[in-house]
């Protein structure tokens, strides 16, 4: 907790804006919540102008509701169950229509209620809500975090040898070696992608690794769908030209060899499916069999969306 305290007038004003007395949240309790939120947001002690601006941006009513729920106010809980529990379930169903994530949602609900005790004290997950987003957005984010962590935990990720430990490939070993071309392309694309701007890497990752639609990517990044589309096309073009330049200048490949390099990837898509070997973020625990496998949605999309002969 910070060593400073918010002025009483500021707390009183925020308390009124939050309509915190609706849930019988005391001014002192609300002050503690606000101060915790400020401590989370600022690494150094902010001045009052920054504090005022920050507090005005908070979802104060949601913060008051969370504070009341954390202290067990019946009316607040009734309101939360009515308004937000359906949100949790809908969100859970959205990522797993078989109902597998409902258990996650129920577990989260239990933690919000404060079923978990530490040192004899009931602790609610609401203590981690700081009002920087709406309560429903925060709930979805927590559920997303739990979902992904559960998937990754059950995937039994195993470390793989670093690339340096494997047999080194001589710089000219790729010549006349299609299998060498594939590894070379992989390495070269990795280097070129790493040099892209973070936002471009993010767009490409969302599109190619996470299988999000353009609209979903737009929502994630705050961009119009058309902007996402244009930028992905531009980034993809940058990667292609970057690869061509590197193959020409760094690998000293001729135009014909560069052509073969690109062609080798197209001809040998199967062996390049490293994701099957490593496991990808899309792998999920199949509730029916207990085995990991491709995300059903992604598999459906791929089989439905790809024309015959197109890349998988």
């Amino acid at each position, binding site marked *: 907790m910070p060593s400073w305290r918010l002025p009483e007038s500021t707390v009183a004003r925020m308390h009124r804006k939050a309509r915190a007395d609706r849930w019988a949240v005391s001014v002192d309790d609300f002050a503690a919540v606000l101060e915790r939120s400020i401590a989370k947001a600022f690494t150094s002690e902010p001045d009052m102008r920054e504090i005022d601006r920050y507090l005005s*941006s908070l979802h104060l009513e949601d913060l008051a509701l969370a504070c009341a729920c954390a202290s067990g106010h019946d009316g607040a809980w009734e309101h939360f169950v009515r308004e937000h529990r359906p949100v949790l379930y809908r969100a859970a169903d959205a*990522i797993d229509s078989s109902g597998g994530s409902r258990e996650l949602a129920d577990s989260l609900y239990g933690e919000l209620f404060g079923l978990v005790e530490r040192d004899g004290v009931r602790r609610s997950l609401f203590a981690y809500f700081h009002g920087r987003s709406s309560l429903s*957005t925060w709930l979805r984010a927590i559920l997303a975090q739990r979902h992904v962590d559960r998937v990754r935990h059950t995937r039994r990720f195993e470390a793989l040898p670093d690339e340096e430990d494997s047999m080194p490939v001589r710089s000219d070993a790729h010549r006349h070696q299609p299998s060498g071309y594939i590894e070379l392309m992989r390495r070269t694309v990795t280097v070129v992608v790493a040099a892209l701007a973070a936002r471009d890497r993010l767009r490409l990752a969302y599109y190619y690794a996470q299988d999000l639609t353009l609209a979903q990517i737009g929502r994630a990044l705050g961009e119009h769908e058309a902007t996402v589309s244009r930028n992905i096309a531009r980034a993809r073009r940058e990667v*292609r030209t970057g690869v061509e330049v590197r193959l020409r200048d760094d690998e000293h490949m001729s135009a014909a060899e560069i052509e073969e390099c690109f062609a080798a990837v197209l001809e040998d898509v199967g062996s390049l499916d490293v994701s099957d070997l490593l496991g990808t973020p899309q792998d999920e625990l199949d509730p029916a069999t207990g085995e990991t496998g491709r995300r059903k949605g992604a598999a459906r999309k791929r089989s439905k969306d790809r024309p015959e002969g197109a890349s998988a």
Partner: protein
Amino acid sequence: MPDRDRDQSVEHVLRRVLSDSRSVLPPSACIDGEILAAWNSGSLPAEQAAAVERHVADCARCQAMMAAFVQMEPVAQTSESVWRRWRLGWLVPLATAATAAALWIALPGNSALPTPVDTASRSAVLEPQSPTADAVQSPTPTAAARSEAPPPALAQERFDARAGNEARKQLEESLSRQRAEDQLAGAGVGAPPPPAAAAPAESAEADRRELAANATARTFAARVSAVLPEIVAPGGAARWRIVNGRQVERSTSAGAEWMPVTIDPPDLLIAGAATSPSVCWIVGRRGAVYLTTDGSRFVRLPFPEPADLVSVAASDDRTVTVSSLDGRSWQTADQGRTWSVLP
């Protein structure tokens, strides 16, 4: 090998490289749900938002978390989170946009692969498009191109009541910035893929010709980026949109074509709801409540207070509930002749 095939080759490798789990950063560097929610809501300071973005760009775990979060997000509510994001941290400096545009211009021509378009089939990425079709499709996805489920029958636009005037001003500023960004970056909008026999478009002169040829598409793209989310009537074909806060346009073709409608005198308009292809309510500043029953002509209805109205929910052409920035709500069941304050 044509550029299209090379792009396809790159796509194969991208898919593998970006899915490589070895890209995961140590868990201690990962973001938690609260940071994710704040980031999505645009509440992080610019510096922190940029740091989060840099981390997520390279972290498979956090990307998966964001992907799951976005998939959970109800479409009807996304207008709130998208537009709140304009407040902080997501504003692209003009210099960066100019740099992106310069990079665009410097690149040799357009990819032989068409610009990605969301359709029911994402394989549109690999499908060749005719120049004309591309010029029309690129700026705005058509109805056929939309992959989103149709919005709910009672379309309800929400604007975050807590954002207040500050957010509204920042929304207007960010709309201007986005228009500038799209105008600068829109060099290739609608640009058709070059024919196989064309000389590489590497020269600046070729780029200038290309830019001139796409002027209409650029203007259109910039204009599109300045609109709030659409107000869609049940059925999806009829919809309206608020442009620059003061104009309203209507489409009867699910967004393929738009025409301005009469709304006079216009005030700053913020939200709307449509209950049928011809009935649409729009609300805005200073007690502005507008209604159309023929789809085209909006009439301003009397409202008891000059409150800034930011939310509207309607069931037909007589009954509507509106809410103000300060959280108050009113309802009418007689097309605005009388209003009652809701508790």
